[in-house]
């Protein structure tokens, strides 16, 4: 098994959070028994282990705080394919990326895989399929996705990663291997009995399943053992294999509709949610976001690869619809709602060819890109310490209006420029504070904390998809109280009694 000493500057000491950690050795196991060996040795020698694969997280989950790193890269690729009552599933090793999985499915490269149920390969060859989780960063690993319960725009219709996990294999730091299929082990009287004395008490807090939430480990009276591990940020075990479900693929048509102002977009989205129309996702751009794109296009007219944004547009909503006969009925409904809020089917863009739809996604991506460019410019001009500050808060849908008001009031109170865009369908909008000088930073930090508090008070989550990692530990106690934090620690005490795995993530001892 490859192992080497980590030098400073090694990519294994950092991730997309840009935090830098420290660690001594890098172990790269090629199979499960090597993982077991490393974990047993580490426990024996009192070394901490941080699990790492693609390092695309933004909260430092893979950044080591001492000890050694377990690099999972060698455990990649797909193993098998099968089918059960819920549909086709692919058995993957943890470091396989979403990109690789998508490529495997689109090329239908199933014939080299183990057939886990008879006839699965042949049947899958004939069925158009796709993996419905789109975590935006497609170079992230499935193992990482499961550990963080990754979500993204498509969560609106398909739910987060959790909904697509069929089975996982977990190695505990004690060396015990758990092979858990959904439905096998369910909590009874608030206890999950995993056998051999591993009984975990389910936390008593309200996990807020109704909203997009990536804060803390999952809790519910009938918690499935699989769900205990999904989103646990690696603090209770190492994933060595997983089965993920695929969904039947259907052609899609992408749409962007323009509205006169911010409020008309919320109105449209709210009415649309109450109608029979089910888009694949609903993404929102406020007037500030559109202006930012317009600004970027002055210096670079080809910035988005799209025509000019209509002059009168003050906000926009982006959504995909299934492209079949039903779409025209949906358009009828959408047209009528849009007219109520000053929009119309004329003030829109649509595209159904694959490469055309990519232009729409590029347009969506141009908002964060513009923000990034803007920040880079200011950084150069004013202060190198200036960085981007964006929120990741979600609230229940019926509280979205109130939350929008709070965003406006709070940011106005602290005199901060901002743009809002994101997953409006999930009540999960990204508010990007456009920091102009170092002077803004402190006010922005205060504003951020106030907004997080407000989101929680409205029954929302301060971290809807980015997770807690090593950056946002305080949110656990803010949201679930000291008791909640203690309950998570108690679960870790049972499954990782030596506190060997991913120390610093989610809870601190």
């Amino acid at each position: 098994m490859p192992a080497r000493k980590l030098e400073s500057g090694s990519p294994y000491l950092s991730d997309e959070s840009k935090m830098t950690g420290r660690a001594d050795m890098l172990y790269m196991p090629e199979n499960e028994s090597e993982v077991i060996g490393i974990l047993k040795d580490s426990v024996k020698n009192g070394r901490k282990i941080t699990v790492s694969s693609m390092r695309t997280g933004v909260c430092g989950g893979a950044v080591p705080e001492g000890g050694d790193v377990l690099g999972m890269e060698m455990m990649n690729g797909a193993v098998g394919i099968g089918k059960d009552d819920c549909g086709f599933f692919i058995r993957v090793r943890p470091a396989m990326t979403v990109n690789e999985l998508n490529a495997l499915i689109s090329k239908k490269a199933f014939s080299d895989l183990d057939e886990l149920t008879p006839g699965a390969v042949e049947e899958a060859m004939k069925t158009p399929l796709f993996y419905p989780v789109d975590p935006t960063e497609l170079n992230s690993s499935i193992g990482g996705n499961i550990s963080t319960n990754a979500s993204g725009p498509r969560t609106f219709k398909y739910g987060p990663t959790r909904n697509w996990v069929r089975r996982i294999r977990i190695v505990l730091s004690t060396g015990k291997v758990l092979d858990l299929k959904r439905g096998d082990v369910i909590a009874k009287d608030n206890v999950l009995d995993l056998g051999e004395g591993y009984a975990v008490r389910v936390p008593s807090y309200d996990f807020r399943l109704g909203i997009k939430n990536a804060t803390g480990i999952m809790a519910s009276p009938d918690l499935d053992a699989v769900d205990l591990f999904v989103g646990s940020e690696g603090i209770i075990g190492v994933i060595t294999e997983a089965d993920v479900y695929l969904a039947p693929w259907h052609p899609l048509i992408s749409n962007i509709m323009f509205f006169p102002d911010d409020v008309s977009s919320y109105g449209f989205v709210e009415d649309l949610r109450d109608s029979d129309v089910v888009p694949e996702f609903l993404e929102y751009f406020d007037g500030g976001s559109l202006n930012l794109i317009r600004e970027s296009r002055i210096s670079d007219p080809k910035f988005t690869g799209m025509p000019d944004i209509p002059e009168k547009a003050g906000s926009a909503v982006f959504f995909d619809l299934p492209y079949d006969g039903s779409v025209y009925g949906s358009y009828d409904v959408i047209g009528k709602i849009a007219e109520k809020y000053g929009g119309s089917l004329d003030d829109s863009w649509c595209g159904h060819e694959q490469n055309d739809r990519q232009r729409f996604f590029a347009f969506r991506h141009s908002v964060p890109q513009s923000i990034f460019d803007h920040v880079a410019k200011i950084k150069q001009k004013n202060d190198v310490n200036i960085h981007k500050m964006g929120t990741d808060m979600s609230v229940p849908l019926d509280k979205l209006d109130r939350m929008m008001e709070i965003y406006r009031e709070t940011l106005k109170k602290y005199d901060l420029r901002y743009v809002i865009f994101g997953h409006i369908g999930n009540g999960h909008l990204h508010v990007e504070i456009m920091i102009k000088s170092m002077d803004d930073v402190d006010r922005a930090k205060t504003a951020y904390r106030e907004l997080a508090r407000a989101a929680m008070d409205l029954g929302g989550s301060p971290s809807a998809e980015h997770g807690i990692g090593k950056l946002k530990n305080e949110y656990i106690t803010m949201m679930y109280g000291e008791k909640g934090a203690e309950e998570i620690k108690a679960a870790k005490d049972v499954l990782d009694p030596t506190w060997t795995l991913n120390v610093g993530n989610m809870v601190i001892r």
Partner: protein
Amino acid sequence: MGCESCSGGSCSTDGGKDGLPPGMLQQYDLNQSTADGGLVWIETVVQGDSIRISDVSVQLLGKLRKMSDARLFGVLFGGPEVKPLYDEIFSYGVDTLYHVRTRGPSVYRPEVYADCLADVSNRVNPAVILIGGTLRGREIAPRLAASLSTGLTADCTELSMDGRDLLMTRPAFGGNIIATISATSFPQMATLRPDIFPMPEPEIGRKGTVIYREPVCSKQKEIISSVMKKTSEIDISKAKVLISLGNGVRRSSVETAERIASKLGGMVSCSRSLVDKGWMPMSRQVGQSGRSVSPDIYIAFGISGSVQHKAGINSAKKIIAVNIDPDAPIKDVCDEFIVGDADLILEELDRRLS
């Protein structure tokens, strides 16, 4: 059907030049054409006050001479200024040169050139017609092929002959497949990709015959303006070192790359996406719809490597690619693949060289 754009009798719309319905020849094995020898359009390039034969014309004369010792015909357009080129044309193997004479320097008109070439072809009945795959060559060739009711294979990278039968090889499907193609009628026509075939050694003192022809087309289009662009500074196909940029670089890196290239005595080229973005002119684009390059060192920054692009660089001697994506398809064709941030590495190179 009458033809309005040209006269000269070369314009007929019947099926084949033997007057038979198309397909009859093949079907009944009547293809007893007497076609023989090769015909080549000698393209000229004006540089300042001087005029010279285009490299690709020389390359395809050399190739034809090597494959066959049948008669070689050349067709040259222009006024008295092209006369000094005769000797050179003969030295590369032309036996008979048809000089389509104009009063002044010849103005390139695809309709006229194609009709004149058809006129000469009908006279000499060649087995093979080769045209250089330059922009003008690729415009004339299909028009000529339709005039002669014959097939045409574009952008060939390999040629071979069996008797008078020509086998033409070209990349298809964006370079994913190399197809070998034969013609089912005479003359067998192909355009050849420039700078694939070697420049032949001239046979100094070799002689040939010159025959003068008059241009045969009457109705000409009106050219309102024609601006010649400087070619020397934009000809990436001759560069020894190319710093090439793709979608994965920032706009500011274009300037950085220019500085690096000038220090290394090279040029900056790019992939299609930067042309689309308007950051670089089309003359710098490498790839199938751009151009093929054959530098000693090709360094691709942030180019993922579309099949077209990969096809455009396959004559480069050494290819280094820098890409943040460890699975970028360009990996398949390069000698060294550096996984890293293209912009940062460009900045670093710039610092070292300044």
